[in-house]
C-alpha cells in the first residue's frame, strides 16, 4: 500500500471521527432531536472537505484550518495593500493598485461551472457588481490552475511556476501585475488564509439531489461511484479560468455598435471603464458619462491606437518606468466581441452620433 493511499485513508478516518464526535456532542445536548436531522449536512461542508472525504487527492496548497486573525490581516492586504503590524503601518504591496481593482471577492456566475462572458455580465448586472478584467477570488482556493492559456504571452516564463501553485500565482500578481513587490511570508500566509475563508461550499455547486444523497452516504459508495462523484463535483466549478488574448479587431470586422445592446454597453461603461477612470481613481485619464469623452472614443473608433476601444480593451497599456500604473487587457472570457460592440453602441449614443 502506497504512502499516499495510507494518507488518504487517514484523512477519511480523521474526518469521519471529527464528524462523529461533533454529532456526539450534539446528541449529548439534545437527545430528542429527530433522527432525520442527524444526517450529515453535506451542503454546509467545504468542497475540499467533501472531496477529501470521498478520497480525492489533497491540493498542493491544502490548508487544514482557517485562522480568523490571519483572515482579517489578509483581507486588509487584499483591499488596502497594507495592514498594521506591531503598531506600524506596513509597506504597501503596490503603490499603484490594490488586488480588488481587478478582482472581485464574490461570486461572479449563477452557474459557477460557466466561463461565458455573457453569463458573467448578466450576473454582474443583476448584482450591480463591477465587471472586472480579473477572475474572482471567491473560490480561488479551490482552483488548481492559474495564469492559464495566453498569459504566457504577456508574462513569459514568469507564469510557468505560477500555473500550478496558488502561492506562486499570488507572488507573480503582487510583483508584476500590480507593479508592486514580492510578498513577505507572513503576508502570503495571511492572504492564503483569506482565500481559504472564501473557499467553495458544497451548496455553491449545482449538484443534483441524487448527488447530494450519495455524498451523505459516501461510506456506502463503491470506489468507482466515489470517483464519479468526485468528478461531478469538480465539473461543477471552474478549476482554472481560461484566458484568451484577442488581437485588435480588424477595421473591416468592426460594427461600431450596429445592432449592439445599448443597456449592456452602458453597464459595461459604468462597471468596467468608470470603475477605474471615474474621478481618475487609478489613472490620469478621467472619464465620465458625458458627450466629450464619448466623442473622443467615437472619433478614434476606426484607429489602431489606445484611444480606440477596439485596441485598448484587447491590449491594455504597459507598465513602464515613470508610469507603473497601466490598464490591464480584457480577455475574450472577460469581455466578448459582442459586449465590446454593445459598449460601442452606448458610446455612439452618448456621443449623439
Amino acid at each position, binding site marked *: 500500500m502506497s504512502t499516499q493511499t495510507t494518507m488518504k485513508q487517514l484523512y477519511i478516518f480523521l474526518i469521519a471521527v471529527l464528524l462523529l464526535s461533533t454529532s456526539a456532542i450534539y446528541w449529548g445536548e439534545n437527545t430528542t432531536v429527530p433522527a432525520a436531522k442527524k444526517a450529515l449536512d453535506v451542503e454546509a461542508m467545504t468542497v475540499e472537505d467533501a472531496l477529501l472525504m470521498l478520497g480525492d487527492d489533497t491540493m498542493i496548497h491544502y490548508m487544514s484550518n482557517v485562522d480568523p486573525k490571519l483572515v482579517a490581516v489578509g483581507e486588509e492586504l487584499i483591499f488596502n495593500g497594507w495592514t498594521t503590524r506591531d503598531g506600524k503601518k506596513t509597506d504597501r504591496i503596490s503603490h499603484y493598485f490594490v488586488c*480588488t481593482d481587478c478582482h472581485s471577492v464574490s461570486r461572479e456566475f449563477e452557474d459557477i461551472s460557466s466561463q461565458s462572458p455573457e453569463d458573467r455580465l448578466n450576473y454582474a448586472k443583476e*448584482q*450591480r457588481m*463591477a465587471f472586472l478584467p480579473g477572475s474572482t477570488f471567491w473560490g480561488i482556493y479551490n482552483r488548481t490552475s492559474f495564469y492559464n492559456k495566453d498569459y504566457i504571452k504577456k508574462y513569459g516564463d514568469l507564469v510557468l511556476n505560477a500555473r500550478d501553485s496558488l502561492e506562486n500565482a499570488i507572488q507573480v500578481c503582487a510583483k508584476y501585475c500590480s507593479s508592486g513587490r514580492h510578498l513577505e511570508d507572513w503576508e502570503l500566509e495571511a492572504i492564503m488564509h483569506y482565500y481559504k475563508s472564501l473557499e467553495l461550499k458544497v451548496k455553491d455547486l449545482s449538484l443534483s439531489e441524487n448527488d447530494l444523497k450519495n455524498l451523505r452516504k459516501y461510506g456506502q459508495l463503491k470506489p468507482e461511484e466515489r470517483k464519479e462523484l468526485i468528478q461531478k463535483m469538480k465539473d461543477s466549478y471552474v478549476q482554472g479560468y481560461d484566458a484568451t488574448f484577442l488581437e485588435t479587431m480588424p477595421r473591416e470586422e468592426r460594427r461600431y455598435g450596429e445592432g449592439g445592446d445599448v443597456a449592456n454597453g452602458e453597464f459595461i461603461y459604468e462597471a468596467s471603464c468608470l470603475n477605474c477612470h*471615474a*474621478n481618475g481613481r487609478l489613472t*490620469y485619464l*478621467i472619464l465620465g458619462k458625458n458627450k*466629450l*469623452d464619448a466623442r473622443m472614443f467615437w472619433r478614434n473608433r476606426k484607429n489602431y491606437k489606445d484611444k480606440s476601444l477596439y485596441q485598448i480593451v484587447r491590449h491594455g497599456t504597459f507598465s513602464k518606468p515613470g508610469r507603473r500604473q497601466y490598464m490591464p487587457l480584457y480577455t475574450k472570457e472577460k469581455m466578448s466581441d459582442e459586449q465590446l460592440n454593445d459598449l460601442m453602441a452606448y458610446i455612439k449614443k452618448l456621443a449623439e452620433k
Partner: protein
Amino acid sequence: MKVRIVALAITTLLVSAGHAQEVQETFNGTRILNGHSTETLKAKVLQFRIEHRFGDMAGANGGIDNFFGFDNAADIRFAFEYGITDKLMVGFGRCKGTGAPYAGLLDGFVKYRLLTQTSDNRMPINLAVLGTSSLTYAKKVDDLSLIQSYPEFAHRMAYSAQINISRKFGERVSVALMPTYVHRNLVNTDDVNGLFALGAAFNVKITKEFGIIGEYYPTFQDATLRTDLSNSLSGGVEWTTHGHNFKIVLTNSRGFGETQFIPYTYSKWIDTDANGKKVAGQFRLGFSITRNFKL
C-alpha cells in the same frame, strides 16, 4: 468589517450614481495659464513641471533678430509639486526670474481645495485657497535706490494669498474668479506693498483633449502709482494626454508666480513707440509641460 464595507462600496456601488457627483476637470491641471486653478493634484502624486516664457515676439525686442523671442528666455521655472491628500497640495520651485526686479527665485505654495462643484448643483462652485511665497537669492546691488539692494533679508521675500473660485457650465465651458492679495516686503517708492488683484479666466474645451484658455489679472492700484506697469493678460491652448498637460500661452507677463506676474508685468500687448504710433509686440510665447508620477 470596515474594510469589507469599503470593498462593498467599491465593487458593488461603483455602478451607481455615486461617482457622478463631483464635477471633474473644471480646468485641466493645477494652473490656468499663469495663475492657479481650483484643481489640486491627487494624493501621492508628484508632478514635475517645466515652464518657459520666451522673449518678446515682436516690437523693439522681437522680430526675426531673435527669432520672434525664441532666442531669449524671459523666465524659466522647474518645480516639484505634490498632492498630500486629494484636496491639499504643496509645491516648490526655482525660477530664473525676470530680473525686474527679482532674479534667482525660490518659490513655494500651499493650496487647499475647500469646495468641489457637484453635478446636482448642491455645491455650485469649486473653491480653493492658495498661499504662495517667493525668495530671491540673487546677489544684492549697491545702489540703494533699487529694490535689488535688499537692505534686509526679509526684503527678498514676497507673498500672495488667493481665493480661487471656479464653475463649470455644461461639459465645455469653465470660468474662474481669483481675488488675490500680493504683499512685497520692499517696493519702489512709486508702488504699494500690498496689492489687490482680481483675476478672471475661462476655458473652452473643443474636444476632450484640446481647449482654449484666457486669463486676465487686473490689479487695483492708485492711478498715480505704478504708472509704468500693466496687467497680465494671457491666452493659450492646451493639449492633455494621459499624465501630461501641455499648455502653449501667449502673454504679456514675463515672470512666473503670483509675486512676479501680478505686480511686475511691464510689457504691453499694444504699446506706443517713440513716434507716438501704436504697435503690438510685447507679448511672448510660453509653454508648460507637466509629468505626473504616482508615489
